[in-house]
Structure formats: structure tokens, C-alpha cells
């Protein structure tokens, strides 16, 4: 099993407070100010789609979005578009790290200040390539082990990981839940 095109959704602590459309000016500013590493191209607005991908920052290497998503739970998603070198562990650390950094940056934006914060202990992690990582018990077991290993490095322990959907049409996805909220900066300092 190979993990490529990973995506990580970090759930918001206050699930329903802000409108996703408030992210539009923030994402445009990120492009203008080159606030994130990588090549960022444009902002796509799907706020009219219920349970949809919300507002997306479209990049060459990745997407970032503030969405309700199919889960109907507010969160920020970092999704890798490019093919990444390294092993599964390195790719997981890259995706988790980028997602947490983007989450911190978004919650600090004046448009959201005080209204949006994220919990690094509540995640949805998707193995994006459905052919390389299949949604079956065998691959799920490997994925789980890899993910728990990566989370441990970040100091996110005593987590419960579960296969989000056994529908074989869905991509292999694990949900992560920690008993208590985990602060983003603590996790990010572990990454450094």
C-alpha cells in the first residue's frame, strides 16, 4: 500500500460559528502575500453547495479548503495534488504538518479572529489514491498503523482511529478522535 495524494481535515472547535464564505478574502490575501510556501493559483467558491467543499484555495501542489464537507462538520482541509517522494511516514508528516499550519494561520486571520479555532485531535485523514490504497480491511490496517505512528511523533497520543466508511466506493479514510482538545501550536512545535 502506498499513500499518495493524502488529505487531512482538521475539525473546528466551534462547529457552526463562521460562514465558510468569510475565507474568500483571506485566501485571496494569502495569494497576494505569498503567505504559504508553494504555488497558489486561485480561489474557488462553492459556498452555494450544501455539504460541499466550501471555499477552496487552489494550488499547483495542493488544495486548501474551509468546508462543511459530506460530514457536515466545519473544518480546514489540506489535500496533496502532486506525487510526493519519501515513504508513507514522511508523506503523512508533511500533510499533517501543512494542515496544522494552515489551520493556525486561518484562525489568526482578522476575518475569523476569536470565532474560529481548530482541534488537532479531531481529524479525518484520507488516502487519496484509491488504486494504491484500497478501501479494504488489509490496507486499512496498514494505514492505521502508519497514521498512529505519525501522530505519535507529533505528540498526539491516546487517539481512537476508525475507518470512516466501509462503502467500497469511498476512498480509504480514517477518522481520528482524541479524548481532549489538542492545541495546534503544541503539535507544530513537536514538528520543529
Amino acid at each position, binding site marked *: 500500500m502506498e499513500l*499518495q495524494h493524502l488529505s487531512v481535515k482538521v475539525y473546528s472547535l466551534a462547529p457552526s460559528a463562521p460562514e465558510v*464564505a468569510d475565507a474568500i478574502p483571506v485566501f*485571496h490575501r494569502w495569494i497576494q502575500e505569498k503567505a504559504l510556501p508553494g504555488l497558489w493559483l486561485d480561489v*474557488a467558491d462553492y459556498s*452555494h453547495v450544501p455539504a*460541499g467543499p466550501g471555499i477552496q484555495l487552489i494550488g*499547483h501542489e495542493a488544495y486548501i479548503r474551509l468546508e462543511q464537507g*459530506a460530514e457536515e462538520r466545519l473544518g480546514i482541509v489540506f489535500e496533496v495534488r502532486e*506525487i510526493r517522494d519519501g515513504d508513507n511516514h514522511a508523506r503523512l508528516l508533511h500533510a499533517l504538518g501543512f494542515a496544522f499550519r494552515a489551520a493556525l494561520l486561518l484562525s489568526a486571520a482578522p476575518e475569523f479572529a476569536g470565532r474560529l479555532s481548530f482541534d488537532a485531535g479531531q481529524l479525518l485523514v484520507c488516502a487519496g489514491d484509491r488504486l494504491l490504497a484500497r478501501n479494504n480491511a488489509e490496507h486499512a490496517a496498514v494505514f492505521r498503523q502508519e497514521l498512529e505512528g505519525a501522530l505519535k511523533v507529533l505528540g498526539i497520543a491516546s487517539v481512537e482511529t476508525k475507518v470512516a466508511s466501509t462503502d467500497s*466506493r469511498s476512498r480509504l479514510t480514517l477518522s481520528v478522535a482524541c479524548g481532549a482538545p489538542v492545541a495546534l501550536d503544541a503539535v507544530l512545535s513537536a514538528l520543529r
Partner: protein
Amino acid sequence: MKASNDAWSQELGPMIREDWAREIDIFETELRLRKQGKFDEKLFAETRLRRGAYGQRYDNGLRHDGIAQQNLAFPEAPTKGPMTQWYAPGMMRIKVPYGGLTPQQLETMAELAEDYSDGIAHVTTRQDFQLHFVLIEDAPALMRRLAAVGITTREACGNSVRNVTGCAIAGVCREEAFDISPYARALTFFLLGHQDVQDFGRKFKISFSGCAHNGCGLANMHDLGMVARTRVVDGLTQRGFQVFVGGGLGAVPHSARVLYDFLPVEELLPMAQAVSRVFARLGEKKNRARARVKFLVAKLGDEEFRRLVQEERKVLPSDPRWTAYLTDLPEATEEKPSKPGSALASTTNPEMLPWQKSNVYAQKQEGYSTVTVKLPLGDITAAQLRALADIARRYTPGAIRTTVEQNMVLRWISNSDLPALFAELQAAKLAGAGAEGIRDVVACPGTDTCKLGISASRGLAGELMRRFSSGDMAIDETIERLKIKISGCFNSCSQHHLADLGFYGVARKVGAHTVPHFQVVLGGQWSENGGAYGLPILAVPSRRIPQVIERIADRFRKERQAGETFQLFIKRIGKVSIKQMLDDLTAVPEHASDRSLYSDWRDPREYSTGDMGVGECAGEVVTRIDFDLAAAEREVFEAQLLLDSGNNDAAAKRALRAMLQAARGLVRLSYLDVPETPAVIIEEFRKRLYDTQLFFDPFAGGKFAHFLFSAFERADEPADQRSAHHRVEEAGLFVEAAHACNLRQGDRIAQSGLAAAT
């Protein structure tokens, strides 16, 4: 690029039709060669277009971020076509003949939206699907995955036969002559890749309607439109089509002409082949702007075109495919219901009632309904596609269709299942009421993803839908069935000419800045297969369009006469009075005092038409041209009024005058004292703006200048209603093009003119 692209070939190999597999293999080879610089750039562009891989906004690597023009630093690689960066994401158009889909195909679409796009599949106004932000290197794997479930993207774009469209309720419609679906499918696959359709100068759009009086198939606005009819010969009912040719929207809409009043179904395929050959042989090839079949028909005349088609038909080598599909054609419809029909128990669910009223259609087959699934702006998520596939399997014989209003329909629902179906659609967030009415705004991609977009059609549409659903804009019975269609530019991809309230994007210069606007288009008619085309009344800043709608709707509410349709209401109160009512909305405050109109809907970037520099030295000259162009616009409007009053000749002449006025304005930028003599204006315009290509549109080239030249040449010919309508429409576009030219190069012209003068 996706890591598993190569693996899909092996995974799906045996499931793909051999000829389609070969097609995709060839494309993949061309793609590799192009990347190595061993395949011509222009050739690659055409080859990818014919396979549905289209360009997308910013793929030239330039984007204005609201502060300045930026170079998008994509990795170095050969281009995908002229001025198109290899790694820039593009759009993939996926053909869905007459909108027909199976649950399995929906599931594939869901996967592709997740794997190659941004999680959204988009239904278009020609029943296609589109995926955006797709990388060219992912295209072969994407195509293989589609081919494995029987879908091809071949000839979805480019100068070819585009998706064949047809009524979404064909086969279940209470008013149709017969089910057009099998004929639409036969023609689709007969023409797909056919040698006689490979040499067109421009795209070719085909549509089927089951009847003449409804709007579903829009035969009137197609290059080739078929309307089903029957006749009785010797006591036997014969099926056939009334055949239209030479319709089209685009910049100047043309109503189609009748090619055959009754063409027996056996003749459908050979007729289309003969038309294709005539178009390929005689259609314009060099000048794209005049290459649609409508121009050929206009040039040759109806009679001569028909004669040529008939001559061609006589010499066509016979082909068994012409009639093979007819042998076991089912009597009524090919879909077999999966459940017996039943009666609907009366419902008391208050949420279901409005949905039932607007989204449920009683089929001609007793006991069954067709349900419209309203998709906001045509968008649907992967999870929703899967839910819809499940619902379709549970309640229908797998019968799904996309519609030209960017929705989907589920057919053959046994009536007693409607409450359960409604609940499941609700759970999937797909049970929005008000389908095909004012809440269901249709919009083209506009500035979101289209390279030609001038204004944010989707941004405006999204905002209107938000206001309707939040109650910020009230909807009552008088206006709830009105149709709003919004295009990002004059090309009319949302079919704004056929809406009650149509809009298309234009830009206006105010001082040194540019303000996004929409032209307000009124008087269009959706029914009668797109029976009448609306005309633009005035341009209003984008941000004020909701006020335009509120004012017009208010007035309709207050002044409507019993039983009067919106179209007749507009005709009765007249364009002058509508313009008066909206005129104050056109005033734009200075940038320094209020910037709110200087950005578009849902896009906080300060608006810009691209790489135009802001010049200050030519301020005075710019004021003069603005004045000239405003005068030209007024003349266009007056021409419209003359047209409305049936004064065709005067309308055509006034339209020419409007063009001359705008042309003179542009000439004056470099030759202040140009006389008002038309011949001199034309000569100077040709020399200073046409021969220098300064007037050329980046995409349409010299198209709009030809409107002026040909109007001038024909100034003395008498005009009938049709030619006057065209002339007025052309004048509007010419003036728009003059605005655009002024935006692009006002300063340059002024400076070069000054340089020439000194």
C-alpha cells in the same frame, strides 16, 4: 499528476471498447511527444480540444491578484498550445448524449471529481459534465475510466460535432410526438469520429425536441435542430422530424431556418451526413467569426443550401448504419420501469409540498413521475453523486438525465414512492424546491474558470440564490416561474437571450479604473423551442444587478395585467420606460470616494480586465472617447426601439450610425478632427484600428470590425425584421468591442497618435 495513472490502464484494459482504447492510447502518445517538444503546439491544442481537454482561465500563466499582474511560476515545460502553460490546470468536458446517464456512470463521475478535480462535478447548459482544475497529464487516465463505463469525451470541444442534446423528459413527456432518445443516440454514435465531420471550420451543435411548443430541446438555436412529428400516410402513422438548420446564439443570435418540414426518420442519419459534407466543403475555414453553419446558410440562402444538401444526399454511398438501429426500436420508450405504477397518497409534509409542486412531473405513463433534482449552479459533490446513484437504483430503472438548465432528472418513479424518495433526496441535500424557476438561476462559468469571462456570472448567480433562499429578496407567485440566465460575456453560454431576465458581462472604464457590469437583456422567450431572442437594454454595474431585478420584479407585480406573461409585459411597457427606471443605477461613484462597485461578486480583488496598464497622461482624451461611446450606445438603444416599432429600415440605419459613432470615437483618439463623413470614418478606422489590429479582440479577432464594414457596404439595401435584428445586435457588440478596445489600448492609441502627429 496522479500517482496511479499508469495503473488504471491495466486495471481497466478489458473493459474499454477497442476503438476507444486506441483513441486514448494515441492521445497519450501525442501528449508524451508534445511534452518532449516533438509534436507541434497548435496541432496538440486542436487534438486535445477534440478530446474535450479545454483551456481554463490563467492558463497563460498570468493572473491579476487584485494588486498587480502576477506571473504564475509553473514548472518549466513545453506549452499545451499557443500561450497555454503545460502545468496550468484546465477544464475537461465530458459528453453526455441527450443527457442520459446510468447510476454506474454517476459513480465514476464522483470518483473523477475527487481524483482529478476539486471535488465538484458541474452540469452544463448543453447537458455535459465539466470538471475543472484538471492537469493535462491526468487526462488519459481520466478518459480511460470514463470509457470503461461507456462515456467518451471525443469531440466534446474543438471544431467538431458537440454533444447532441435532447429533452430530458423524452419518452415520458405528455406532449411529445414520440421519444427522440433512440434517434439522438443513433445520430451521436453515427457522427462520432465520422470522416465527414473532421473538417469543419467551427463547432457544430445538434439538438432534438419532442415537440414544437415547449422549450426543452431548443431546436431553434442549434446548427441542426430536430423537432419530432408524425403524419399519417395510407392509414399508417409515420415518424419524422421537422429539421432546422443554421440557428445559434453566440454573440449574434440567429433563428434557425426550416430545412425540411417532414423528414422521415429513415432519412435522419443520411441527411445529417449530407449537411456535414456541405458544411465541411463550403463552410468558412479561415475566419472563425463567420465559420458557423448559420453564416453559410445566410450566404447561400435557404433554397440553395437545401439544394446542395439534396444533391449531396443523392451521391452518398449507402451505409447500413443509416437504418440498422430502426429495426427493433421500441414502440414507446426503451426504459422498462422497475416497479409497477401507483397512486400518490396525499401528503401533509409541509416541506414536500412546494417541492412536489415545482419539481415533480406527472409522466404520460399513468402512475409514474419524473423528479427534477435541482443542482445549485449545476454543481454536485462526489458524495451527492453516489447518493443519487443509490437513489436511482432503488427507485428507478437506472434512468437519470442531465438537463439544459443544469439539473438532473430521475424518471419512472412510482408515485407512492415519492415521499420516501423526497426524504432520501433531503438527506443528500438534493431536495431543493423551485426547479427551473427564479430560484434556479442558470450561469456559465464566467470569470471563475472561463478565459473569456468578463464578469462573475457565477458570483452574481450565487448571490441571487442566497438572497432568494434567505428571504432578502422576496419571491411570490407572480415571479417564481421567471427564468434568470447569466453569461460572463457576450458568447451566451448560459443562453441569456432566451431568459426572462438575461444578463451578460461587460466592462466599463470609469476614470482610470474598470468596473464590472452586466448588460440587462429583456424580451427573450424560452418556450417555442427558444422562440424569441432578447435584446440588451443597458449596462449596469455588476453589484447593482440585484436592484435591477428587484425593480423590474416590483413593477411586474404592480402593473401586470390579468394573464399577461413577463415577455408581453416587457413589450407593453416598452424599453424606454424600463431604461428610465434603471438609469440612475448606472452612475458609478469615483474610485476615491467609494470602491464598492470596483470589485465583482464574491471576489474581493479590485476588478481588472487583465494586463491593462493604468495611464494618467491621456486623461482628457479618455473622457472624450467615453462620451463618444456613450452616444453610440444611445444610438443602439434607439435602433432597438425602432425595431420594436416595426420600423426595420430605420432601425438598421440607426444601428449603422451607432457603429460609425463608436468607430469615430476611436479614430478621434489619434485623429482629433476626423470629419463625420461615413466613408472617411470607415477609411480611417480601417487604417488606424483594423489594419493595425488594435481593434482586434484577443479571441474573436477582427470579427466585430466586419460588422461595421458589411453594414456600411449594405447601407442602401432594404432591411427586413431578421436582418434589422441582426444589425442592431451587431451594433451593440461593435460598441462593446469599442469599449474593450478603449480599455485595452486607449492610452496606446492616444500616444501613438500623438507621436504620429509630432
